[in-house]
């Protein structure tokens, strides 16, 4: 397999960033990791994953859709869409890589969301296999193998070498752009490392969490479960889980009057918010119970119902660490599960 000695990885990133913008997971001042534009001297993080998911690259928290100019009774529409430039996200974990295919099932189905598509078309996802999973990890529950991440190009690090395996044309293009630095080599070290990781995964506290009893076929049973009241009673109704979640994809469309025109933009929204479904004449989801239920029903039941059984969760564990009151999908699954 193509590989590069671990001490040369920054040469590779340097070379890649000469051709297009490269984002890598790097440490920020408070010790958390986030994707940052690679610049010379920047270090890859040692943290397992970034605090926020990588979905921003394709579905940013806010983006302008269209602009209007109002003049008396006339309206002028200004299509401000511009083709996105090529970029690479390096070091995406298996869970986040899977989240992109989940988002694709929303944004790339007819009618295609051109804003999302443009970014997706121009972004190359270079993934990185995990070697030190955390206690909050449960990607296995959704059939994700963290030692074999998807993406345009998969990368492994066994401590000595980084191994590269392009999976798509874009991935191949990325590998080609740094091919002069790569050499063909054996994978003995890698195999051992993957083996080790697989052993660790068996020991993870959530290793045995199963989603097999969830899915579209028990829709009303789960919807009407009497567990929701207790599960949702301490939910604050904030959007933390939604906003750190790699698969949450709801948005709101708003107009901003700049004084000389109207900018129509969309921004992330959360089904946990009390005004999410509020209408002039009422709200079908009046209490936090309904809103809380919606979020988990969507991930565990509605999404699979509409997408051949695929779940709307990738087990990245972000909501497990970030929820202010430590309520999360794992607790919900365990409490709710009907065998």
């Amino acid at each position, binding site marked *: 397999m193509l590989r590069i000695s671990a001490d040369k990885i920054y040469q590779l990133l340097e070379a890649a960033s000469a051709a297009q913008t490269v984002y890598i997971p790097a440490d920020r001042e408070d010790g958390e990791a986030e994707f940052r534009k690679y610049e010379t001297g920047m270090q890859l993080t040692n943290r397992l994953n970034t605090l926020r998911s990588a979905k921003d690259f394709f579905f940013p928290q806010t983006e302008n859709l269209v602009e209007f100019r*109002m003049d*008396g009774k006339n309206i002028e529409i200004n299509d401000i869409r511009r083709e996105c430039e090529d970029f690479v996200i390096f070091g995406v974990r298996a869970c986040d890589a899977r989240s992109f295919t989940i988002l694709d099932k929303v944004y790339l189905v007819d009618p295609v969301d051109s804003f999302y598509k443009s970014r997706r078309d121009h972004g190359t996802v270079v993934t990185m296999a995990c070697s030190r999973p955390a206690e909050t990890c449960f990607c296995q529950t959704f059939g994700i193998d963290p030692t074999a991440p998807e993406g345009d190009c998969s990368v492994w690090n066994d401590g000595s070498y980084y191994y590269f395996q392009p999976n798509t044309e874009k991935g191949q293009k990325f590998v080609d752009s740094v091919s002069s630095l790569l050499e063909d080599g054996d994978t003995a070290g890698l195999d051992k490392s993957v083996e080790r990781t697989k052993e660790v995964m068996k020991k993870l506290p959530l290793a045995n969490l199963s989603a097999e009893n969830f899915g579209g076929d028990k829709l009303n049973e789960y919807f009407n479960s009497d567990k929701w009241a207790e599960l949702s009673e301490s939910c604050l109704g904030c959007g933390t889980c939604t906003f750190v979640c790699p698969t949450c994809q709801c948005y709101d469309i708003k107009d901003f*009057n700049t*004084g*000389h025109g109207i900018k129509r933009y969309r921004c992330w929204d959360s089904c946990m918010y009390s005004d999410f479904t509020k209408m002039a004449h*009422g*709200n079908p989801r*009046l*209490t936090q119970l309904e809103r809380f239920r919606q979020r988990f029903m969507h991930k565990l039941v509605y999404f699979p119902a509409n997408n051949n059984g695929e779940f709307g969760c990738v087990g990245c564990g972000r909501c497990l660490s970030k929820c202010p009151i430590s309520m999360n999908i794992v607790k919900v699954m365990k409490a709710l599960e009907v065998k």
Partner: protein
Amino acid sequence: MQRIGVFVCHCGTNIAATVDVKKVAETLGKEPGVVIAQDYQYMCSESGQNLVKDAIKEHNLTGIVICSCSPRMHENTFRKAAAAAGLNPYLVEIANIREQCSWIHKDIADATEKAVILGRAAIAKVHLNAPLTAGESPVVKKALVIGGGIAGIQTALDIAEAGFDVDIVEKNPTIGGKMAQIDKTFPTLDCAACILTPKMVEASQNERITIRSFSEVTDVKGFVGNFTVTIKKKARYVDETKCTGCGLCTEKCPMKKVPNEFNMGLDNRSAVYIPFAQAVPKVATIDPNYCMMLKTGKCGVCSKVCSAGAINYKQQDELIEEKYGAIIVATGFNPIKLDKYDEFAYGQCPDVVTSLELERLMNAAGPNGGTLLRPSDKSHPHTIVFVQCVGSRCDDSKGKPYCSKICCMYTAKHAMLIREKYPDTEVYVFYIDVRTPGKNFDEFYRRAVEQYNVHYIKGMVGKVTPKSDGKIDVQASDLLANEQLHIDADMVVLAAAIEPDKTARPLATMLTTQMDTNDFFTEAHPKLRPVESATAGIFLSGACQGPKDIPETVAQASAAAAKAIGLLCKNSITCNPCVAHSDELMCNGCSSCEKVCPYGAITYIDKEFRMPDRTTKVRRVASVNPAVCQGCGACTVACPSGAMDLNGFSNSQIMAEVDAICK
């Protein structure tokens, strides 16, 4: 979408010389919602107003913007014009392009641009204006005067004179207040009783005045024009309607050792008593703290001697509820307690007295029948020392920070009266400075010094020590001579500071009026509205607002009456519609708004809400009384949820103006 008319005034050349008014009209005409924009020579003239009225009708306008002089000048003019044309007057906004534009800028381009922007801001605001209707609330044609001293009596007489019913609530058995206790008045030295008691009689005989003596206000609800007041009529154990005031019971009462408050405790009265001979109402009162019958059930002498059968030992306190349109506070003052002033030996030595006690000692109806004798041994005092500013103008916590205002003059009066009557008595007055700013005041003071040879010494009395020989050693400093003095005095008179009556503060809470830190009622405006409280319908009479002498008190009493009459004359009050209102659905009931409201216009109610899921929930929410709210908007900012907003100056209106200006 509104239909807005814009009218740009030239104001002759006042505006047109520096602002290109045609261009302003033309530019504003293109703003969204503007259907007509015109300019005119004098918009405020009759023809100008007609132009506006015609445009309102012709274009079916929903709002108008006048670009002209300051709204302080002609806002009302144009509001009336709009109303005449059938447009709600509160759908008018003024862009001030004269005082705040053409008059201060010289460059035509700058001024024109600014005029356009000011016009835009007004248009942005008028887009959000809502029609407002001034509410009306009826006025109960009756006033309540709290306090029956000279201030209360004067106010009541004036109001009654104007033809309105008025009640006086007095906590003591008789009206008259402090003035009834005073011997002579300065600077004329006429007898206080001679001028006061006729007024008391007049009040009692006026059929529009009801005197509720021996009564207290216990609760006030409502608002301007419509107060509901609960009055506690304390049991006096004597049927007022039957008692003839003959005084037989007071003579026969076996319990004679009750300190007589009217004479400042300098002598005694009986348990059943009439405070003084000219009391109004002249009705006996039984003091339950001393009456043997009420305390032990044994006696009943008064009942036996009363031929009118007026004594009723079973009488109970009675609560009376009355409605009033206006309330006048006349709770007056008291001298402060001097227990903190050990250095003056008050309380240790009976010959150290306060000025008010001296009044009684010198009064013909006083304990000594008008002869000034030392309280201790009833001897004639030969040396008397007056100490000024006892507790006044203090910077420590013992006294009051303010000047009590009347002491300089009454001390001069006392000194003069003593020297007049007892020329062998030496009188010393220790003062910080002598304040005599009043008609004939300084002349009066000078007479005391020059004609009556009263020894005025600028300086402080350090210590007053009773001596074993019955004399009193007064240690003082003479600041002008810069020397220490010792005076062997027979009597010392302390000019105690005066303070508002203790009943004032709880009353202020009931009335939701403001008080300063000294418990004087705060007037609505210190210069321009000195006899009104900030709370509509509550007026201030006399010393409850600040230290005052009698003529000032009477003047303020009449002024308060005039203000009250002005209110009572109206059948109803037109309320300013630009008042705060609370969106009950958003209100948290947190009380922030209530705390910043200077008028007590905000109350809380527990309101039942129908929730969207068809359950009901009772929540505490704020409710603004539009008759009381004056529309300052303090509450709107105190409210964290944004539930409170102000008509005519709403959050969205002001923000729209900001946006338009910053565009």
